[in-house]
């Protein structure tokens, strides 16, 4: 397991435990008591750390390299998944996957950002940073979902839309803008779930839904804490403060009425029990399908436009 910087004490304890277990297995010394002791200390310490996570620590958890990604959720939740490729204009963007499959007996359209597990995959997936082609592929397939009257599930996990020369040449801004406008009036139910990082327009580009949920240890905001620190504090050292100021956690977003639900993660984060994380997301999807099954399309669109229309806090005299 990969430990994060705030889990340093856990890492040390885990190392001691592994050593003790090794000694035990050699059969010369009885380590049972030490092992039991260490295990209970680890449990206590884990609880201690996870009881009071700071916002910056949650950001780190959202980026944990062993966290389940879109394709992991698809593999666990969706049966008979058929992935569809390409925007029909330029190419297939591998930072964003899309296709159709079934959740139990219900056909769904599923779309999500995809990060890579190792160096090769990370390059192939461009670290989950989509180009305009990705957003256009997503829209193309969402339109198919509308045609076939199938609900749409989007999984958000991106450090941002890719900032590159070609991305600008091919209209990164236009691609995201188009998705925002089109998604807001699609005539099928849309559920959006932030499963990791929800960075800015790159996240929102597949984030306009009737219901928006976030996993417990994820973040969603207009900018990452690091970039916010570099712009407002003019150096990279204030990321913790920036994370606090941005109020970017699932809890914050729910409190500010910018999302609708928070999905529980396994204790200590989704990466510690990916199967349970997938199970929780699946329950959320099934609940959504149940809640929106009877909804009339015009009402759906009207409510969605109104929902986003009401977001924001301002003075009016």
């Amino acid at each position, binding site marked *: 397991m990969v430990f994060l910087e705030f889990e340093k004490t856990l890492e040390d304890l885990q190392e001691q435990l592994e050593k003790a277990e090794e000694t035990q297995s050699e059969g010369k010394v009885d380590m049972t008591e030490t092992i039991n002791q260490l295990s209970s200390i680890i449990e206590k310490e884990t609880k201690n750390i996870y009881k009071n996570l700071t916002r910056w620590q949650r950001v780190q958890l959202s980026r944990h390299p062993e966290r389940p990604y879109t394709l992991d959720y698809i593999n666990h939740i969706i049966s008979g998944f058929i992935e569809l490729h390409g925007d029909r204009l330029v190419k297939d963007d591998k930072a964003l996957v899309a296709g159709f499959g079934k959740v139990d007996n219900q056909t769904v359209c599923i779309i999500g950002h995809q990060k890579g597990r190792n160096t090769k995959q990370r390059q192939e997936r461009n670290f989950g940073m989509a180009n305009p082609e990705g957003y256009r592929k997503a829209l193309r397939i969402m339109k198919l979902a509308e045609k076939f009257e199938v609900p749409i599930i989007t999984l958000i996990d991106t450090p941002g*839309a*890719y*900032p*590159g*020369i070609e*991305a*600008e*040449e*091919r*209209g*990164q*801004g*236009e691609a*995201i*803008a*188009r998705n*925002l*406008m*089109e998604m*807001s*009036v699609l005539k099928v139910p849309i559920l959006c779930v932030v499963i990791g990082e929800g960075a*800015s*327009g790159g996240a*929102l*580009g597949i*984030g*306009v839904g009737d219901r928006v949920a976030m996993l417990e240890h994820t973040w*969603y*905001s*207009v*900018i990452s804490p690091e970039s*916010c620190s570099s*712009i*407002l*504090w*003019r150096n990279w050292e*204030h990321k913790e*403060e*920036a994370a606090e*100021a*941005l*109020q*970017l956690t699932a809890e914050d*977003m729910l409190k*500010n009425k*910018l999302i609708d639900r928070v999905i529980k993660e396994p204790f200590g984060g989704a990466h510690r029990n990916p199967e349970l994380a997938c199970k929780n997301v699946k329950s959320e999807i099934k609940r959504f399908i149940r809640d929106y099954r009877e909804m009339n399309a015009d009402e759906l669109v009207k409510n*969605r*436009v109104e929902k*986003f*229309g009401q*977001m*924001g*806090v*301002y*003075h*009016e*005299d």
Partner: protein
Amino acid sequence: MSWYKRLSEGIRTKTEDKKSTPDGLWHKCESCKIAISTKDFLSNLQVCPECGHHHKIDAESYFKILFDDQKFTKLFNNISPADPLNFQDTKKYKDRIEKAIANTKLNEAASAAIGKISGVKTVIAAMDFRFIGGSMSSAVGEILARAIDKATQETTPLIIISKSGGARMMEAAFSLMQMAKTSAKLAIYQKTGLPYISLLTNPTTGGVTASFAMLGDFNIAEPKALIGFAGPRVIKETIGKDLPQGFQSSEFLKEHGFIDFIVHRSDLKQKIGNLILLVGKKKVKSNT
């Protein structure tokens, strides 16, 4: 009528020669640094007669340029920014707001007005760069959303003039959601069959580009404006290479197919008026 007058030789003077000139009488071009008389600069709509550089102008100036007889009614200027997150970086957001209001005498970085263009009732919303970099706050989003709604309800053509550094970070996710809010409102406006003209001016970047600014039936731009999603500095840092000449300029965007045409400020009223008469008149109700 031509607004653009080339000034006679006698009026042009290099800045170096004008150092002792009191402020207010002469204006030094941001781009070519040549000084011209403020009177001529203003009558030329703040476009440098030497190099054609379009200086930033405020929302009110655009209203005056575009509306017939400079006549219009301001809308929603009772909306001003709140501080939903009690945000503080090196400064308090509250203080930034107060200072911006004091300096600009505006309530927010967006204003809206209704009036006539070529005799057709039209709603315009325009952004103001002087107010916290024209950044997108909840209040900006609300003003734009109401302007779009107004055009929908009154079945008028709609013009949004963008000039923005992008998100207002001090409103974090509230700022982000304004992209969805304005785009959703535009989706509803689309159903009226009336034209939405998006005018992109220097600079139009970030979340503004990735929402209403790129959603025009007609996306048009002033010359040499910086237009892009990601900032040039961020792109340069990401790819570790220098950016090509003219990257993210109006001309670059037109070349790549994202801008319908580029329009000099002096032709703005006529071109927009013509567009509205060409495609927007038929469906406009009660334009008397």
